[in-house]
């Protein structure tokens, strides 16, 4: 049966042929063996080199901000729309932009693909002991061929951490669905790492986090990769009032991470992109996760990851808990 890539190419050909879209955003092979990078096709032959497989991919929703017109321009006609390849986590990002009035649902074409977890090449290399030359993936397990020996690893072992807690396997609604829906296996929430930190003493926690923030080089990759961060001009770029000084002292780092975490409180859909792009691997998921856990527990929001019309911090209930 046709692989996902061929289905995609055929769909994209159809979209371009009857002038339904002006741009298709997908993935293509990167420069290192297993890296996948975003690709933009304005016509069909540019889309030929696009592929779909189960390697770790970057997040595409953020590009919609630049590629689409302002919401004020209203609904564009059919041929000006942008098509985007969407997995479950991408869909949450797109929902976030729609709810924040940054883009209009009518201006995009969602090309949905089901996904039950992407492969983390670093984990495969660690299990293999060296850099894998060849990695092939089939139904349940992954075959990694190194220079000398190769290893068969079960997929569950090498799946990305963020996919272990994935809250949406494929887009809830889409214009085109490339493959039939898989069983939407509900993954239970795992806040164990966060509880671990909560059990530490205040001093240990401060040391743990100041050690993490010490490494932060303030490159803002976490902000630029996150769809919840869609401001026109970020508060960290505004000099009057200066919420954050350019100097990278410990107190400024606490300030930066506090503000960033609070700005995505109740808006973060746990896609894990900020952790992926961080050059010094700061566990930002634990920061966002703590706020998400509190929101779900305190304001009994069923799933804080799914963008709601009004954010949890944008409303209140009379019987909100009182003890602090």
């Amino acid at each position, binding site marked *: 049966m046709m692989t996902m890539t061929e289905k995609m190419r055929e769909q994209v050909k159809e979209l371009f042929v009857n002038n339904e879209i002006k741009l298709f955003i997908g993935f293509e092979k*990167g*420069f*290192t*063996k297993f*890296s996948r*990078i*975003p690709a*933009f096709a304005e016509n069909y032959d540019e889309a030929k080199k696009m592929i779909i497989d189960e390697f770790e991919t*970057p997040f595409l929703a*953020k*590009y919609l901000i630049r590629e689409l017109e302002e919401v004020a321009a209203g609904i564009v006609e059919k041929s000006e729309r942008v098509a985007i390849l969407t997995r479950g986590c991408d869909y949450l990002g797109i929902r976030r932009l729609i709810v924040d009035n940054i883009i209009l649902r009518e201006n995009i074409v969602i090309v949905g693909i089901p996904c039950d977890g992407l492969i983390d090449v670093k984990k495969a290399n660690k299990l293999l002991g*060296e*850099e894998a030359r060849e990695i092939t993936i089939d139904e349940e397990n992954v075959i990694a061929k190194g220079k000398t020996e190769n290893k068969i690893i079960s997929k569950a072992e090498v799946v990305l951490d963020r996919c272990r807690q994935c809250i949406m396997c494929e887009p809830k609604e889409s214009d085109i669905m490339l493959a039939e829906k898989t069983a939407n296996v509900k993954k239970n929430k795992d806040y164990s790492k966060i509880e671990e930190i909560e059990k530490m003493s205040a001093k240990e926690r401060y040391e743990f986090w100041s*050690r*993490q923030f010490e*490494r932060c*080089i*303030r*490159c*803002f*990759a976490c*902000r*630029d*990769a996150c769809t919840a961060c869609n401001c026109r*001009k970020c508060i960290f*770029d505004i000099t009057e009032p200066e919420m954050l*000084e*350019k*100097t*990278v*002292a410990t107190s400024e780092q606490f300030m930066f991470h506090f503000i960033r975490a609070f700005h995505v409180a109740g808006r973060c859909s746990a896609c894990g*992109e900020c952790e*992926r*792009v961080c*050059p*010094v*691997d700061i*566990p930002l998921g634990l920061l966002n996760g703590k706020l998400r856990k509190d929101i779900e527990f305190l304001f009994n929001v069923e799933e804080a990851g799914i963008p709601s019309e009004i954010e949890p911090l944008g409303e209140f209930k009379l019987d909100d808990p009182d003890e602090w």
Partner: protein
Amino acid sequence: MNKLLRSNVSCLLKKLSEHTEIYASTEEDGVCILAKLDNYEEWTMNYVRTANSVKDVFFPQNEEIMKYKDASSDLKIEAPKPFKERIAFGVRPCDAAAMLLLDDVFLKGEFYDSYYKERREKGTIITIACEKPDQHCFCTSFDLSPGATEGSDIVLYPTEDFFLVVEVTEKGKKLIKDNAELFEDIGAKPEIVDSYKNMRTVLGDVCIPNDLNEKLKGEFDNSYWKKIARRCLGCGNCTFVCPTCHCFAVCDVARGCDGKRARTWDSCKFQDFFLMAGDHNPRPTQIERTRQRFMHKLNYFKEKYDKYQCIGCGRCVEKCPVGVHIADVITHMKEEL
């Protein structure tokens, strides 16, 4: 040539640390970084490259230029206290070569930066040759190699149980003389050095034509810039991890009437890097900024200092979230022109 047993590396570091600050490669929460070390057992070897480069040691991200007292009434300005001696241990050959590029920027020319100069004079770089470069490295394209000695004071070539020590500069010789008891002279072993020197990287050679900067001159409005800039998210990741990027911002931190003036890294990829008073921005979108970054590395720097501002360490390639790759720019420009 001398020999240094792996076991007495930490006692070498302990001995050196009496009067110098030691920056060594250590693993912290799964990330290898070059950091000031106090307990020397934490020093580690299993990394391809540290997340931050040796630039951190000599041109730190956050550096105080001066302190001032009661700003507008009777202003007093104090320069910072002199810096201590420092040793960077466990640096990779490509990072050490990068320091030479920074020397061109900060030390050559009519104005030189005295803080950088002092740190460089008081600093020694002990490099460890690369045993296994990974898929991101392409230092061989800039006539460097996993065993290169440019920029380092001492280079250690690792073998199974000991390091072959090669002194490159006077400073290196002096250091070995001071701690002679830890080293053993084992005569010349060129074959170990050569085995590192002609080791090929996985990515292979990108073989940059010498006249690439001439070609790039006319390439200002090439559509290629628009293509790769479209992927770029505009974060400062690639510029901050790059050991050769030297752009910085000067900013004042005021505490009432006193305060200090500090210098911190800045990235040409940020939105407001070129923004002038009166809201005029010569490079408003990501296209101009991406072009500026690569033209600066491959054209402007070569025009001024006759060297390409890249050493192929592969950090920007590994860390870029969306795969904007300098080698891709070079190969594309090479073919197209």
